[in-house]
């Protein structure tokens, strides 16, 4: 791909993240279902890493993490590191194991959200934010409610990848 194609590709991915981010910060936070707000940026990072591989996934996760740290309250830098790692691992797994189908994306997203919530619970326990049952309940609800949005996020990035994404040897568009 030429440099121009690369720039166009990443601009398209960034535009794809925009509705996801807007939905999370402007709409879904006003109508928390089950008392929790879903977290959608990690799902976007996983989607892009699934299609683009480890290196690009890590870079995209890093950028999304910066946006998340600027947007979400909490430990600064945590989401930057977390989403970068998520992108790297998801991209690596998709290169050698998981197919780029919706099931593969759902599996990666579930593992990613599980890891994210585990880190959150550990942090809450470490900082004595609250007792384990309460913290675990919020983490479980947040993770499960966020995963419900995978059928909406997957088509967005699949479409972008089909239009401008990279073609990896042996890779298949699900």
């Amino acid at each position: 791909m030429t440099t121009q194609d690369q720039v166009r590709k990443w601009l398209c991915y960034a535009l794809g993240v925009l509705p996801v981010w807007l939905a999370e910060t402007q709409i879904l936070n006003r109508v928390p279902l089950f008392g929790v707000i879903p977290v959608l940026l990690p799902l976007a990072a996983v989607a892009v890493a699934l299609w683009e591989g480890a290196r690009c996934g890590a870079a995209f996760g890093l950028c999304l993490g910066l946006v998340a740290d600027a947007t979400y309250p909490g430990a600064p830098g945590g989401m930057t590191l977390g989403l970068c790692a998520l992108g790297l691992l998801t991209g690596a797994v998709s290169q050698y194991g998981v197919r780029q189908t919706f099931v593969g994306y759902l599996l990666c997203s579930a593992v990613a959200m599980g890891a994210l919530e585990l880190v959150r619970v550990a942090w809450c326990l470490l900082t004595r934010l609250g007792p384990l049952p309460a913290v675990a309940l919020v983490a479980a609800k947040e993770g499960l409610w966020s995963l419900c949005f995978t059928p909406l996020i997957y088509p967005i990035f699949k479409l972008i990848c089909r239009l401008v994404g990279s073609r990896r040897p042996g890779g298949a568009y699900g």
Partner: protein
Amino acid sequence: MKKLFQSNGGLLVLIALLLAAITLVLSLILSGADPLANLWGVVTTPFRAVGTAAADWAERSFSHRYREEVLADEVERLRQELAAAERQVREGEAAQEENQRLRTLLELRQRRSDLTDLESATVTARALSNWESSFTISKGSNYGIQEGQCVIDAYGNLVGVVREVGLNWATVLTVVDTDIDMGGKVSRPGEQISAVLEGDFALMTQGRVKLSYLPEDIQLRSGDLVLTSGRGGVYPPDLVVGTVESVENDPSGMTRYAVVAPRAELDTLNQVFVVKSFDIVE
């Protein structure tokens, strides 16, 4: 003479005279139109009808077009008038809202004269996290807002505390957040019970705050009013926090705490007031 007459259509003149005479006689004898006129009318009526219809159509089209243009100009003029009227209505509504805000602020200042400097702000962003209870307001250090300042609603109820300040924004931790820690008291007629307001994660998810370090011999009742104590001079005293909902035992069973329901409507706040300074009452 005869040849001149014959060569210049004299015969035709005779025929014409004859026809005229016949027509005259017949018109005198018969009622109605004379035969020639009648014949002319019969023959030309269809053509006249077509011509009249065409002329009418042309006239209608022209006048329709002309009226369309006149109506279009009229519509445009009315649209502009409507837009100007709508603009005035909007400005009026904005002025009315500002008037109401200023009236509320004036009433609040009259009611709470000890709160010497209040800065009004609007809520620009609601909670984005399930792990804390906060929101963002429209003013920051450019209006002298600082970390740790109390935030109240239009009725003087405690909303929270400023946690983070930017140039033109600030984040406010609500009263149910886990980082809240301030002196509180239960106010009853002739009696005041000191305690500590502190955030609890489990209660935060339910929109409640914990009132702990209650004296052992005190019996709290549902509905008891909880206020800020103002001890230490960090936060203003006598800000309404909420009402006692229930009294629970600590997991250790050694102490009790009260579950307080905040009086401020944290989920629907639009306007808040930051207490930038207040009189310290000893």
